[in-house]
């Protein structure tokens, strides 16, 4: 069985002491930043990227992935105990999770969140295994034409499914694409938009851009808001949920996992959409919907399962097609490229130990999270007591040093400074910066494939419609656009996202 040899290879990679350690470091850092509101996984991964260069590619991916799903666990802890979502994905958990905590059931809420996440994570790992091989076989048939169309589809879908105004997000993708073109043109060797700055000839590094836009811009905006946190001050005994709790939570957990696994694969699905959908579904299915918002355990189990399943299955398009589903996956693509690995369908065959090791590590990582998280809850709670006035200067400093560390150049620090200002501007005018990062990372690939396709077809743009796979992909894009224009659907989407 091909599948089992692959999995065996994966586990043999993931279970080496070294990789287990990196996985542990990843999930611990992830949980920590997940617990702390105000710093998310995107700047953290960006910050740690420079220090993973020296590592083996599989170790570095294992650690970075651990940060991502670890943050989902941590985010729910804050949501339950403080009623502040540590991450956007745990906004829904606040509703019933915090209510449970207020009723003195913080322990069971935390435990159910962890168990649901572990269950979902394990199932999602299997989903990844099952979907990866067929998708990558399909993808190996791709030429530049199909690849270009796929990139277009990926970008469109990511924008449409993510929250915020679609028109603004599209504009941000285009802006990102444009910034991605800065540097020496590979085909002609001409410098483009470098303004005579030698550091720009290799293009704009996405790490300082990400840290400026997501890390520092967010801090500046945070400092303007009033911070109010009410920590539940009860000792967390009785961690174990009762039999009745488990019985109520289990079906919600199953449904949440299914929803998360499906939505996570979609570009733009990532971490935000699944928990919202799951919560809405649970509320609809419940015999007594009025319990929701008053500490219903299903309202914790479902969304938590969905959010973790989604976080993991969003790796599928990345691993099989080289298409990032969200801004964080775009960073992972960047990490691969920095390791000298060109992301795309060939990664599956050329770097099997990387892909399968990463997949297997998600399971071991989830197990670690389940085991360490509940006993460590006290530590996480005490981290919450660190006041923001001490936290943010530390983040600023680490962003500076981390950015410097990418290529030991201060130029990147200046880039980050500029992006911090721009990021703040974007927040002020209500524009979501994530699509820009997608465009920035995919820009060079998009141009390369477009040029190659046009060269092969001798300048005939209809080539994208005459190749069947490409035509189907672009057809989906067109359908999405049409659907978006139709007012009825537009309202539905609005409602769904507003909930």
């Amino acid at each position: 069985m091909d599948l089992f040899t692959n999995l065996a290879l994966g586990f043999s990679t993931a279970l080496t002491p070294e990789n287990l350690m990196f996985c542990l470091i990843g999930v611990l850092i992830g949980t920590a930043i997940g617990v702390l509101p105000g710093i998310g996984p995107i700047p953290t991964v960006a910050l740690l990227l420079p220090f993973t260069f020296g590592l083996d590619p599989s170790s570095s991916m294992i650690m970075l992935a651990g940060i991502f799903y670890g943050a989902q666990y941590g985010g729910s802890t804050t949501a339950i105990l403080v009623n502040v979502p540590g991450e956007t994905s745990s906004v829904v958990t606040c509703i019933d999770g915090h209510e449970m905590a207020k009723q003195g059931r913080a322990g069971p809420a935390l435990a159910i969140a962890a168990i649901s996440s572990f269950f979902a994570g394990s199932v999602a790992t299997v989903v990844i295994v099952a979907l990866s091989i067929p998708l990558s076989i399909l993808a190996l048939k791709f030429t530049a034409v199909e690849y270009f169309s796929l990139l277009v589809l990926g970008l469109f879908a990511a924008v449409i499914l993510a929250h915020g105004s679609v028109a603004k997000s599209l504009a941000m993708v285009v802006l990102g694409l444009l910034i991605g073109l800065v540097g020496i043109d590979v085909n002609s060797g001409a410098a483009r938009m470098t303004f005579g700055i030698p550091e720009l000839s290799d293009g704009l590094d996405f790490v300082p851009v990400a840290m400026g836009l997501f890390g520092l811009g967010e801090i500046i905006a945070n400092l303007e808001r009033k911070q109010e946190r009410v920590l539940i001050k009860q000792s967390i005994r009785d961690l174990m949920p009762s039999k009745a709790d488990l019985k109520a939570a289990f079906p919600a957990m199953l449904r949440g996992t299914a929803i998360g696994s499906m939505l996570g694969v979609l570009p733009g699905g990532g971490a935000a959409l699944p928990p919202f959908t799951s919560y809405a579904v649970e509320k609809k299915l419940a015999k007594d919907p009025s319990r929701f918002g008053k500490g219903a355990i299903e309202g914790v189990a479902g969304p938590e399962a969905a959010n973790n399943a989604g976080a993991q299955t969003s790796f599928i398009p990345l691993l099989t097609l080289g298409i990032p589903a969200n801004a964080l996956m775009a960073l992972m693509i960047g990490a691969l490229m920095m390791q000298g690995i060109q992301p795309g369908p060939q990664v599956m065959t050329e770097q099997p130990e990387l892909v399968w090791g990463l997949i297997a590590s998600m399971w071991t990582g989830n197990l670690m999270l389940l085991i360490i998280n509940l006993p460590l809850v006290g530590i996480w709670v005490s981290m919450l007591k660190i006041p923001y006035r001490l936290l943010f200067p530390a983040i600023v400093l680490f962003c500076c040093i981390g950015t410097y560390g990418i290529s030991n150049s201060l130029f990147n620090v200046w880039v980050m400074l500029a992006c911090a200002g721009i990021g703040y501007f974007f927040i002020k005018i209500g524009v979501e910066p994530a699509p820009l990062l997608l465009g920035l990372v995919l820009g060079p690939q998009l141009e390369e494939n477009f040029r190659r396709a046009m060269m092969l077809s001798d300048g005939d743009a209809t080539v994208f419609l005459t190749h069947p796979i490409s035509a189907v992909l672009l057809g989906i894009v067109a359908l999405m656009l049409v659907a978006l224009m139709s007012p009825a659907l537009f309202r539905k989407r609005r409602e769904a996202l507003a909930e």
Partner: protein
Amino acid sequence: MTGRKIDLQDALFGAFLILVSGGTLLATTKLSIGNAAEMGPGYMPRAIALILMAFGLFFTAKGLFRGGEGRGIERIHLRPLPGILLAVGVFALLAESAGLAIASLSTVVIAGFAGPEHRFFESVIFSVVLTACAVLLFVKVLNLPIPVWPW
């Protein structure tokens, strides 16, 4: 607010896009465009800049004339923005010349001023602790090639 509402958020976003697009078009005038089959280095930047220009005009027009919800900009506070930018700028200026220790001390203290509640002594003590951690972690453990002291 007067009778006609201006949606400042949309209008500013549009203006920003037009600015970037215009800058790109200016910066790429010397690059050859080529043709669709043999694209020159200027083809894609200019094509994308033109799309961006269209977006920019759309948002500016929408913000100025259609008004929408007439969203303004929330008040900009005096300290956070300049405080954080200055902290980063000082790091960039000092890191290589004066060393990591002095640079991170200054960055943390300046960043402290950006917050709504500032306690000077706490901030200084904290910066010393943080600097020690940063030097240990980045220079000693992770071997970042950066001088620690100016000498």
